[in-house]
């Protein structure tokens, strides 16, 4: 093994660099054109991308199939929204907050930069990670169907908690008048960070341990790979980013109730994950863009044809076809290797390709 030279590193960085620049250019154009609808569309892609990638980290990489992640999103959304709600709105809509919370308001800015929103998002994400750590200590000992059912239970518990913590969440009533901080830049900065982190985790020894214990727990343990640490790590990190997505969602839609964070959303995210390919970072990106884009395109077809509801049917059929003919999703576990785009000699000496194990 040769150590990578500076030239090699530059070559590797060129591909992702070009992609990020292209994305940046797209965002600048959208921002300058002031097209709120298409900005909203791209923001939706970004939020779902964070959700799908973080779910991939847990479900795809470790094979511990969680159905409870939307619960983390709900916690992130509510926590950050309670924190950023301006004082006068708090008195109006959340009059029964405990005093220490009633006085906090993360609506401060540094110049025009909403530091409070960043802080609230981080606090929410860290708190949710802590919850995930506690939950994960118990649930990550389970495998297969058991973990799916247990995490589903977690989702239901969170929903019931949100309904009944009336003083904090307004219960079943819609939590409204959240300040709309979320814009293109917030979403895509977080999305890029998520992509980077998830990608790095995949290539790290921890990531390899995740794969090893997923494919064959006994063999992995027999060569000294512990099962619990990689699982727990994946669960907590993915909860962190799911909570971030929740915070972004809350400050984008600006009104929501516990009903939003339930089965519908859970399965929408899982669909994107499965269509793209569990275990593939670029698969998650493809799956998200594909499903969000297709939903929008089909919605546009509904209006002139008057075939309302057709988009749901088409998506369902597509999903079934993918499950039948490409069981591992469009990309399986393969990656579109952006880092080899500009590498001479086909990129030998780079990091090993993950090939489809099946």
């Amino acid at each position, binding site marked *: 093994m040769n150590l990578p030279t500076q030239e090699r590193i530059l070559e590797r960085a060129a591909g992702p660099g070009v992609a990020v620049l292209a994305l940046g250019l797209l965002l600048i154009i959208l921002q300058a054109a002031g097209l709120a609808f298409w900005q909203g569309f791209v923001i939706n892609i970004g939020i779902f991308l964070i959700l799908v990638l973080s779910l991939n980290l847990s479900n795809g990489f470790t094979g511990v199939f969680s159905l409870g992640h939307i619960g983390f999103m709900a916690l992130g959304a509510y926590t950050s929204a309670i924190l950023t709600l301006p004082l006068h709105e708090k008195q109006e809509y959340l009059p029964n907050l405990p005093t220490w919370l009633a006085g906090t308001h993360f609506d401060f800015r540094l110049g025009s930069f909403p530091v409070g929103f960043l802080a609230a998002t981080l606090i929410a994400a860290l708190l949710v990670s802590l919850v995930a750590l506690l939950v994960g200590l118990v649930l990550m000992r389970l495998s297969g169907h058991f973990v799916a059912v247990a995490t589903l239970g977690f989702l239901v518990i969170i929903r019931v908690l949100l309904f009944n913590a009336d003083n904090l969440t307004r219960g079943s009533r819609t939590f409204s008048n959240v300040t709309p901080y979320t814009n293109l830049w917030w979403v895509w900065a977080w999305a890029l960070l998520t992509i980077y982190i998830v990608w790095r985790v995949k290539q790290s020894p921890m990531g390899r341990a995740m794969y090893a214990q997923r494919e064959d727990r006994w063999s992995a343990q027999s060569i000294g790979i512990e099962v619990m640490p990689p699982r727990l790590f994946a669960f907590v990190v993915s909860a962190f980013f799911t909570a971030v997505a929740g915070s972004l969602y809350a400050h984008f839609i600006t009104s929501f109730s*516990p009903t939003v964070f339930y089965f519908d959303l859970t399965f929408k995210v899982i669909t994107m994950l499965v269509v793209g390919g569990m275990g593939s970072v670029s698969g998650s990106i493809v799956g998200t*863009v594909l499903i969000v884009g297709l939903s929008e395109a089909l919605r546009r077809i*509904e209006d002139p044809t008057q075939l309302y509801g057709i988009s749901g049917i088409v998506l369902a059929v597509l999903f079934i076809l993918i499950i039948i003919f490409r069981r591992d999703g469009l990309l399986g576990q393969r990656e579109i290797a952006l880092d080899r785009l500009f590498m001479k000699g086909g990129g030998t000496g780079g990091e090993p390709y993950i090939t489809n194990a099946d």
Partner: protein
Amino acid sequence: MKYKIFALFVIATLFLSACGATPAGGGGGTQNSIKIGGGFALTGDESSLDLPAANGAKLAVKEINAAGGVLGRQIDFIIHDTKYDMSVTAQVAKQFVEQDKVIAVIGFTDTDSVLASGPTIQAAGLPFITAGATSPKIPTQVGDMMFLACFGDNVQAAAGAEYAFKNFGKNGYLLWDKGVEYTTLLGSYFKSRFTELGGTLLLEDSYDDKATDFSAQIAKAKALPQQPDFYYIAAMPYNVGPVVKQFRDAGLTAPIVGGDGYDTPDILSVAGSAANGVWFSTHALMDASGGTEGIKKFITAYNKEYGHDPENAFAALGYDSVYLLADAIKRAGSTDAQAIKKALEETKDFSGITGSITFAPNSHVPQKGVTLISIKDDKFTLGAEVVPEKVPAP
């Protein structure tokens, strides 16, 4: 090879969404038409209310256009389905403002959809009339361009409470769906008016949204030492059938009282004759024989257009919303948003088929009477027309 197929797939998707971007925006209107947006959840959980509302609104637009339009211009009514998905709802609001360039928006029969779309429409400074979202808090939550075409939940809950107190007795029972804002508010307004009148709630109970089994609640009600004179059940349209049927099947025969969530054909098709003895407050009785002149005319027109009678009062509310807006545009004499808003606020004794609409100063929730419907012989019949004596604060 596989990569190529996949790349084609992605390109096709992007192409499709790009295609979608251009044509739908224009709608079918002429250059000079007045564009009005109609946001409705035509599919999803609210569709049994939103679909009739959208049909009613379309009928009104057709009539107005046939009669020469408003200010000599035709109305171009642009409908988008929001799928009862809040992300889509928020996007549709932006679509109305930015791509369809409408001058006003009407639609929706539920609070969540209005709150998800309202801020965008408010920020664009366009008038927004909700056909059937009955939370009286909506105008303060959204802003000064927001209007209701229907009464607030505090009004219908007070009407139900007063009627039940006088006619059924002062020992009540309250059950509500704790998963939804509408039912939670309705239940709490009912409780506040009923106890104010001197009534006692023998039991207050709740269930999870979309529950299908109410045996736990029924067991608790049956175990009461004294049986209540009536049951007030605040339920969503998709729950009313099962909850009523299960109460009756368990042998609980006292009247069941509810709000306008009961105004769906589902209650008759699901609960069947078990629905007899149900009383609920709503906007109008859609009955060709018992209704007012306006309702009879509306039902005939609706039947001619769609081949069946209006499903419920939300059809009439959609219809009224369009006429209410058209009336305001006419009086404003222009399509300027602020002028329309001012004209809407000055609306006085506008005679809609769901009742006469007047906006009191500083209120964007109309003062309207409430229709109480009684289900008898497997049919909706007019129980009473009520104007509540006192209404709980929103």
